[in-house]
């Protein structure tokens, strides 16, 4: 099959899934609990995929993703609550501001490598959180009241757009440059790739979609508080990417779905949930550091003998 045909095939399958779920929601076959679960899954998929671009494709170890989630959440909430803008516009503004925050954080800190970058991103995320904590305009520690606006339609199209853009970015020339940076930064530099430029682009794009997820997140919950965007949220997102396999888009999506469902069932036992999470993290790292999918994509299993795309470099 030609590449464009495969693309349209997947797009049509996705739209059919959307239509079925939307029909089930409107005809009351799915109650509030399950439609809410679906929206949460969608938000977590966007977060996982956006961090996948930064860690899995570009190899830049960022553990401050919750900071950009917070920027998107607060900015879009300000747009709808204080300025009465329509929700899609607010989502877009939140994402753009998050991308700008990504640029501000990324340009200085992406000069760092490995552990130092990780700690710097963690520090920036905490600074962002403390800024919101001390801003009375957004309610400070008490939080901000928000009308619920996120529906399955918004959540689905958020995921749809995110996955299409990130998958196509990965396949493009720019995406290959990012993969080259991940594999060997010095070699990529020697081949004439502007490594700093691609690291910053990937980081800003990742932040953009984290901001989009933030907008959906804040309008799904009635209230947002700075404490929702601490270390733990960043680690949650990190776990999706690591468990799915660093470099695998579908792995990140599968892990996000799996862990969201598991943690939904364990909401009444938060300690048990965190113990299971951390044990999974340790055991996966010790015995299968490549994660669920490695760098393979799920589609690789369907088209046997074909060269795979994206983050996959093993079997060329």
């Amino acid at each position, binding site marked *: 099959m030609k590449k464009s045909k495969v693309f349209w095939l997947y797009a049509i399958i996705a739209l059919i899934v959307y239509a079925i779920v939307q029909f089930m929601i409107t005809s009351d076959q799915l109650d509030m609990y399950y439609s809410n679960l679906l929206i949460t899954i969608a938000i977590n998929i966007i977060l996982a995929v956006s961090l996948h671009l930064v*860690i899995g494709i570009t190899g830049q170890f960022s553990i401050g993703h919750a900071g950009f989630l917070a920027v998107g959440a607060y900015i879009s909430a300000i747009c709808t609550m204080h300025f009465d803008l329509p929700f899609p516009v607010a989502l877009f503004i939140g994402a753009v501001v998050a991308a700008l925050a990504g640029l501000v954080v990324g340009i200085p800190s992406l000069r760092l490598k490995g552990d130092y970058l990780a700690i710097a991103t963690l520090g920036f995320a905490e600074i962002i959180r403390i800024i919101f904590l001390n801003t009375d305009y957004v309610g400070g520690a008490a939080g901000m009241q928000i009308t619920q606006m996120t529906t399955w339609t918004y959540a689905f199209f958020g995921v749809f757009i995110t996955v299409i853009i990130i998958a196509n970015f990965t396949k493009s020339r720019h995406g290959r440059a990012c993969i080259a940076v991940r594999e060997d930064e010095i070699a990529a530099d020697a081949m004439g790739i502007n490594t700093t430029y691609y690291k910053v682009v990937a980081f800003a794009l990742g932040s953009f979609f984290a901001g989009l997820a933030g907008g959906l997140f804040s309008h799904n919950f009635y209230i947002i508080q700075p404490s929702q965007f601490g270390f733990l949220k960043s680690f949650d997102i990190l776990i999706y990417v690591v468990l799915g396999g660093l470099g695998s888009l579908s792995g990140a999506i599968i892990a996000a779905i799996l862990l969201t469902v598991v943690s939904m069932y364990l909401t009444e036992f938060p300690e048990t949930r*965190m113990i299971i999470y951390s044990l999974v993290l340790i055991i996966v790292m010790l015995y299968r550091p490549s994660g669920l999918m490695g760098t393979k994509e799920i589609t690789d299993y369907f088209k046997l003998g074909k060269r795979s795309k994206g983050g996959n470099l093993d079997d060329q």
Partner: protein
Amino acid sequence: MEWVQQLVNGISLGSIYALIALGYTMVYGIIKLINFAHGDVFMIGAFIGFYAISGWGLGFFPALLLAMVVCAIFGVLIERIAYKRLRNATRIAALITAIGVSLLIEYSVIYFRGAQPEAYPDVLSKSTFNFLGAQISAQSIMILSVSLSLMIILQFIVHKTKIGKAMRAVSHDVEAARLMGINVDNTISATFAIGSALAGAAGVIFGVYYTKIDPLMGVIPGVKAFVAAVLGGIGIIPGAMAGGMVLGVVESIVSALGFSLWRDAAAFVILILILIFRPSGIFGKNTREKV
């Protein structure tokens, strides 16, 4: 004269950061791993001290010693179980494992004893005395002298004993050290033991000074101690001490100026500035990137 008082508070707080930072810096120096679980070893130390003092009626020094011994064993266990197999793994795998171990310790403690905080009993005298017009508590002097003596003992171990020599050799070059007949595994375990013992001591001191402990208390001091270690130049022992002190004093000044809610941000702003302008830290030497 409030400034002198704030300075003393800052130095007391800084000495706690410095004690934790020493463990980070020693472990990082030897196996290049940010041991995220270090802050939780500090928390375990605080709880052991608490149970020793209020449960068994021990005094401050026996409790301190007990916490140090238990934390040393605990640190070695963490290293042997979780980190040892990761010697040749990627940095990302090691860092994620460390995050996992940290979460596991925190939530196991919450699971077994609940998340409620505990009030530390008074073990040191509450008397204060006048110094240059500032009220200085005997407690902070005591804390400072305990921390300083621990640091002096550490310097002695690192520079004058055989195990210290082995530690310096391993942190310089693991392969060469192994060729010279040094047992690298034991040396790394010894490093974890010493670093964790210092964190345990810091936990007891923190409990006595701030009187409130809870299972998640290790997170923020842990991260800040890491900032202190980076500030002084990670892997350099005097750097961690200086970095801890500087961080403590800066935080006290920020609080004294009336921005106490921004106190936590100050540490991260320092971290980012130091990472951008002088990533090797105050005491660090510049290293060239090699292909």
